[in-house]
C-alpha cells in the first residue's frame, strides 16, 4: 500500500538538499551587460574551473538591478558577485549586503587603479570591491554644425560655449528649435542635468556635500553659479528642454556634456563622418576645469557561502593575462568603455581620438568621483526636478537651491 506521507518526505528532503546543491553550483556573477556585450567575460567564466569551482553569468538589466538584488536577497537567491554602481554602494554597505575583500585583494586594487576610482569603491575608508567600468563626462561636439557656424574648435569657456551654441541654434518657420546649439539629456534618473551640474560645480572648486556628508552644499555660490549657467542657455533661447541630448547621433545638436559610454550610439549615428565630425574636449570652464566620473565595482555578497572562492574569481577576472588584457578589460575594451585598471590601460591599444580626452581626464585627476552618499538615487532625483524647474524658467536658482539644500539635508540627517 502506498505511503501517503512519502511524497511529502521526498519534497522535504529535496528542500533541505537545495542549499547544499547550491554550494556545488557555479559561482554567479550578476551584471547589467547584455549577453552580447559580456561575451568576452562569459567566455572567461565558462572556461573558469578553480579546483572544481565553476562560474556562470547572470544578466540583470540596469534599471532593475537594485530591485532584483533586493528581491533576490529576500528570497535567499542572491548572486555571489555583484557589479555595483558606486552610488548604490553606501546603502548596500550600510545594510551589510557586501562582504569586505581580503587584504591582498584590497592591496591589488590600491596598487593598480586610479585613486579617484578606488574612492568610488570605498565607503567610510573601507574598500568594498574591485573597480570595473568607469564613466567620465566631457564636452562632445558636432563639428560639422560648429564649422557651419564658423567655429573651428570646440569652446573651452562657458562664454565660448554660449556663443558657439547661439551661432548653431536655428529655428524653423513655426519657431521650434530645428538645430540646437546645446542640449541636456533626458533620463529617468535625472543624470542628464545632475551630472553636468556636478562637473560645473567641481570646475568652480565647489562641492555638493561636506566631507562627512552631514551637510549639503547646494546653496553655495558655486552651486548657484553652475545652475544659473545651465538655466541661461534656455533663458537666452539657445536651447530648451524639449531637445534631448540623446538625439545627438541624429545630427541636429551642436554640443552636449556626455559620458564616454554613449560613443557607440554616436558612432552608429554619424557613420563614416564620425572621426571627422565628432570632437571630445574639456568641460568648457577654463583652465581649472574638472569633471565627474562614476564607476562600477565588483563586490561579493555577504550571504554567499563561498566568499573566499568568489574573491578569487573577482581577482581572476581583473588580473592581466600573460601581459594582455584581463577578462574585464577585454570586455570593456570591446564596448569602448573605460577602465581604471592600470595594467589594462597599459595593455590596450592607444585610445582613439574620441576616447583619448576621457582617458586623459582620468590620468590627470581632472575627473572627480561621484559622491557615495546614502540615498544617492533619491537625492539626485530631487536635484534633477529642481534643476529642470529652474532651467525651464519656473523658479529662480537661489531660492530653489535653498529649498533643495534643506530637503537634501533632511535626508542626510537620517543617516549621518
Amino acid at each position, binding site marked *: 500500500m502506498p505511503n501517503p506521507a512519502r511524497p511529502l518526505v521526498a519534497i522535504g528532503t529535496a528542500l533541505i538538499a537545495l542549499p547544499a546543491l547550491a554550494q556545488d553550483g557555479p559561482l554567479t556573477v550578476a551584471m547589467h551587460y547584455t549577453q552580447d556585450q559580456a561575451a568576452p567575460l562569459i567566455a572567461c567564466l565558462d572556461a573558469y574551473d578553480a579546483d572544481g569551482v565553476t562560474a556562470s553569468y547572470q544578466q540583470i538589466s540596469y534599471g532593475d538591478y537594485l530591485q532584483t538584488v533586493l528581491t533576490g536577497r529576500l528570497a535567499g537567491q542572491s548572486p555571489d558577485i555583484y557589479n555595483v554602481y558606486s552610488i548604490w554602494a553606501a546603502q548596500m554597505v550600510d545594510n551589510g549586503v557586501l562582504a569586505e575583500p581580503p587584504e591582498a585583494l584590497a592591496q591589488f586594487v590600491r596598487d593598480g587603479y586610479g585613486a579617484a576610482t578606488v574612492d568610488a569603491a570605498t565607503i567610510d575608508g573601507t574598500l568594498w570591491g574591485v573597480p570595473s567600468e568607469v564613466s567620465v563626462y566631457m564636452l562632445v561636439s558636432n563639428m560639422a554644425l560648429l564649422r557651419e557656424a564658423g567655429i573651428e574648435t570646440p569652446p573651452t569657456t562657458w562664454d565660448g560655449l554660449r556663443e558657439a551654441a547661439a551661432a548653431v541654434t536655428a529655428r524653423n*518657420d513655426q519657431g521650434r*528649435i530645428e538645430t540646437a546649439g546645446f542640449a541636456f539629456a533626458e533620463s529617468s534618473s535625472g543624470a542628464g542635468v545632475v551630472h553636468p551640474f556636478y562637473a560645473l560645480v567641481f570646475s568652480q572648486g565647489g562641492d555638493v556635500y561636506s566631507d562627512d556628508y552631514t551637510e549639503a552644499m547646494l546653496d553655495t555660490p558655486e552651486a548657484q553659479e553652475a545652475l544659473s549657467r545651465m538655466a541661461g542657455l534656455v533663458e537666452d533661447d539657445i536651447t530648451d528642454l524639449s531637445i534631448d541630448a540623446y*538625439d545627438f547621433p541624429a545630427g541636429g545638436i551642436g554640443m552636449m556634456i556626455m559620458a564616454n559610454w554613449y560613443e557607440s550610439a554616436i558612432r552608429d549615428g554619424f557613420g563614416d563622418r564620425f572621426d571627422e565630425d565628432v570632437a571630445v574636449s574639456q568641460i568648457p570652464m577654463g583652465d581649472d576645469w574638472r569633471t565627474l566620473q562614476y564607476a562600477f565595482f565588483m563586490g561579493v555578497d555577504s550571504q554567499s557561502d563561498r566568499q573566499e572562492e568568489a574573491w578569487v574569481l573577482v581577482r581572476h577576472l581583473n588580473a592581466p593575462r600573460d601581459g594582455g588584457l584581463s577578462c574585464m578589460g577585454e570586455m570593456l575594451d570591446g564596448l569602448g568603455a573605460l577602465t581604471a585598471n592600470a595594467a589594462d590601460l597599459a595593455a590596450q591599444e592607444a585610445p582613439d581620438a574620441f576616447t583619448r580626452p576621457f582617458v586623459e581626464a582620468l590620468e590627470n585627476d581632472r575627473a572627480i568621483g561621484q559622491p557615495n552618499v546614502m540615498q544617492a538615487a533619491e537625492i539626485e532625483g530631487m536635484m534633477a526636478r529642481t534643476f529642470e524647474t529652474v532651467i525651464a524658467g519656473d523658479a529662480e536658482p537661489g531660492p530653489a537651491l535653498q529649498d533643495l539644500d534643506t530637503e537634501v539635508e533632511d535626508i542626510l540627517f537620517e543617516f549621518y
Partner: protein
Amino acid sequence: MPRREFDPGGGGAAPWVFLAPLIAFAAVFFVIPLGFSIWLSFTRWNPLGTPSWVGLRQFEYLFTRDGDFWRSILNTFVFAFGFVALGVPLSLGLAFVFSRARGKTLWRSVYYLPQLTNIVAIAYLWQFVLDDRYGAINRLLGMVGLAGPNWLSDPAMAMVSVVLVMIWYDAGKNMLVFSAALEGVDREIYDAAALDGASPLRTLTSVTLPIIRPAFIFVTITSFITGMGFFALILAMTGGGPRGATEVTALYTYQMAFESLRMGRASAGALILFAIIGVLSILQFRALRGRE
C-alpha cells in the same frame, strides 16, 4: 435509515473544505499582503535591512512635510477626473453610434484592439507620435505651418497627453459594456416612445440612459478606480515628468518603494491612496444609486 438532506448552513467541515482553496487564495494574495502593507506603513524599512517600528511618523511626514506627495494626489485627481469626464461619455457615444452602424462587430473589434496591446508598447508608440520635435503630429502640423504644442515636455500638455492616451487605450473596453447594455434595451420601449412623439434626444435622455444606468454606474466607478490607481502607462510614457507634472500617487509610491527604497513610507502613501479611492468610490456609488 433516514436520508440525509444537504444543508448548506449546517455544521460540519464540508463547507470549509470546499471553501478552503478560495480562502487560501484570498489569504495568500489579498489578506496577508494587505496586512503586511499596513504593518509596513508603521515602520521604516529599506528592504536591504530589517524594518524598525516608527509609529505614525511615515503618515506624519507625508501629510505635513512632503509637498511632492500632495502634488501627486492632485495629479491623480486630474488624471482620474479627466479620464472619467472625457472617457465615459466617449465610450457611451461610440457604443451608441455603433449600435446603429453597419458592421458594428468590426467597429467594436477595432476600438477594442488597444486593450489587446501591451501597455508599454502603447506608451512607446505614442511617444513617437507625440514627440515634440520628431513626432508625427507635430510634423504634420508643421507641414501646414502650425507650431504644435510640446506634448510631452510641457507640464500641462503632458498631463493632457497621458489622459488622452489612457482614454484611447480604455475606451473600447467601456464601449463594450455600454454596447451590451444598449443591446439589452427592449425595442418595444423605443417604439412606444416614438409613438408618443419623443424626439431622439428625449428618447436618449428619458429612455435609454435611465435604462442603462446600472452600466453607467459600473463604468464610471470602475473607470474612476482605474484612473486613481493606474500608473504603468505614465511610467513608460513620461516617467512622471516633466518636472513631476504627470507623477500620480501610485507612481510616486512605486518610485519611493523601489528607487528610493523607502518601503514603509511607500506603504503609508499607498494606504492613503487606498483610503481616498475607497471613500470616493462609496460616495460616488451612493450618489449615482441615489438618483435612480
